[in-house]
């Protein structure tokens, strides 16, 4: 459980984070979303006591981080960039961290196996790929078997296999009842990993909503239809809430009707279809709309749903 109350962090005149209040609950994966520079990393640094808030408070499992007698057993953190001395081997890095809290060698070896670094555990971190570095960072975060995990951009720069690995790891950690707080600037990634998203922009809270809500905003934008007799079909589909756009000799984009309805209408009139593809609105666009509102109007948490997202062809991965 992470609780931030009216947290503000100023660097000189500039506020990196302003009056941020949120709660990260155990048992689910909570995404922390915002464009670059929104204040995600600053917030995470404040959670683990690396930066002190200018005002407000952050507690983890009921106490400020620094007041825990064994912080590594409460919170595991993977912070931005690598917090690893590259001249040391992976195993020695973990052993040095583990020593501060009296965590034994067997736990270190267990984690090296868990994150799949057994083959390179005695190699210096300097030669590690980004993915291996992230795995080592995750092993560091898990050292104390903490109830709460904080991960800053864990999938940044990872290959698909690494992304899948982290996604599954986060979900299984949450399923064990842990609090999992993970930042990203990719809404599409969070849609697959998180249950809840906290969205910030310019250091302010924009939304604290279930991921399903954001996905719903972006879904069902339009259907791409390809038919040899597109002109006839276009006329048949026309209706009060339906927009049909001709995008090619035999291609239509239909908003306002589902692919089932379009397919049925075409079959009723014996019109051949070559393609019938529902195109989801882009999550990134839904996310950008949310954050853009904040930038334009500066009113946290009151972002209106974006009007239309019919042009995107991105879709959910």
């Amino acid at each position, binding site marked *: 459980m992470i609780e931030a109350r009216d947290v503000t962090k100023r660097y000189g005149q500039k506020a990196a984070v302003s009056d941020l209040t949120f709660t990260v609950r155990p048992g689910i994966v909570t995404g922390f979303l915002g464009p670059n520079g929104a204040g995600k990393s600053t917030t995470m*640094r404040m959670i*683990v*006591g*690396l*930066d*002190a808030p200018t005002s407000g408070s952050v507690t983890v499992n009921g106490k400020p*981080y*620094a007041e*825990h*007698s*064994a*912080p*590594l*057993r409460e*919170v595991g*953190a993977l*912070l931005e*960039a*690598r*917090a*690893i*001395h*590259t*001249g*040391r*081997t992976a195993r*020695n890095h973990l*052993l*040095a*961290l583990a*020593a*501060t*809290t*009296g*965590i*034994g060698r*067997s*736990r270190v070896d*267990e984690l090296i196996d*868990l994150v*799949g670094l057994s083959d390179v555990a005695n190699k*210096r971190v300097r030669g590690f790929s980004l993915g291996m570095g992230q795995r080592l960072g995750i092993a*560091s975060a*898990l*050292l*104390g*078997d903490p109830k709460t995990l904080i991960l800053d951009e864990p999938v940044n720069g990872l290959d698909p*296999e690494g992304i*899948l*690995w982290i996604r*599954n*790891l986060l979900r*299984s*950690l949450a399923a*064990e009842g842990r609090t999992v707080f993970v930042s990203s600037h990719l809404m599409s990634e969070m849609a697959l990993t998180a249950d809840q998203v906290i969205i910030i922009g310019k250091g302010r809270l924009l939304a604290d909503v279930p991921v399903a809500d954001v996905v719903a905003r972006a879904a069902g934008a339009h259907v791409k239809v390809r038919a040899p007799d597109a002109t006839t079909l276009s006329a048949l589909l026309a209706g009060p809430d339906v927009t049909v756009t001709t995008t090619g000799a035999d291609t239509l984009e239909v908003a306002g009707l589902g692919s089932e309805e379009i397919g049925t209408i075409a079959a009723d009139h014996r019109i051949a279809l070559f393609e019938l593809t529902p195109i989801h609105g882009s999550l990134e666009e839904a996310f950008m709309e949310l954050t853009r509102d904040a930038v334009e109007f500066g009113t946290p948490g009151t972002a209106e749903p974006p009007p239309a997202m019919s042009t995107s062809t991105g879709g959910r991965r």
Partner: protein
Amino acid sequence: MSTTIPVAPTAPAGGAVTLPRTISSEWIKFRTLWSSVLVATISVVGMIGVGWVGSFFTNADWAHMRPRELARFDPVVTSLNGYTVAELAVGTLGVLLVTGEYSTGMIRATMAAVPARLPVLWAKLIVFTCLTAVLMVPTSFVSFLGGQALLGTHSTSLSAPGVLRVVVATGVYLTLVGVLGIAFGALVRNTAGGIAALFGVLLVLPAIVGVLPSSWQDTIGPYLPANAGQAALSVIPDPAALAPWTGMAVFAAYAVIATVVAAVLLRRRDV
């Protein structure tokens, strides 16, 4: 790799973060870094090497030495001349022990593990001070004794007046340089800046004061960190300098002040 992840929570043995544990962590960090082991080795080998080689050639070339060189000859100085190598190595290593964590980002992991922060500074000081003392005092003796053997008939001995004091003080001086290095590293948090600041104070500051009027030099000079510390490094005390161990105490006071300021800033600043 499997996609289902068994995060077997083998509950790690209980226990809080303590200073002894932080010390053990810092000791692991020190010995597992190739660069720190290398620089520590350079400080030992460099000091002994320079002292021994200098002593050997002084003895070998004795007949060809110029009168001015002969007048300046001091068997203790000749055998311990390599302390400047050790000073550079130990000072740099002290700075690196702290700034290496900042430049790599390791400091975030370190301070997240020990959020009280000060134990990390104390642990680094304890580990490095013990290590430099254990290395540098014996190195000073080895350098001196080997040097005297190589100087042959021109040698002196530990029992001669002031000699034992110089040999011990050289090791102590180098240990304090290491402490200053850690303090400067923690103050500046940047490797190049930390090294420049440390050797600016130790090597450049005396030169700067050297351009001032001599009455100023006489007043300020003896109290400069390096001058105060090095007062104990000559067999016949320099009348212009502080008394040997007084000077060393002044040098130690500088190290303590720098450490206290570093500690205060470590608590106050964001990591």
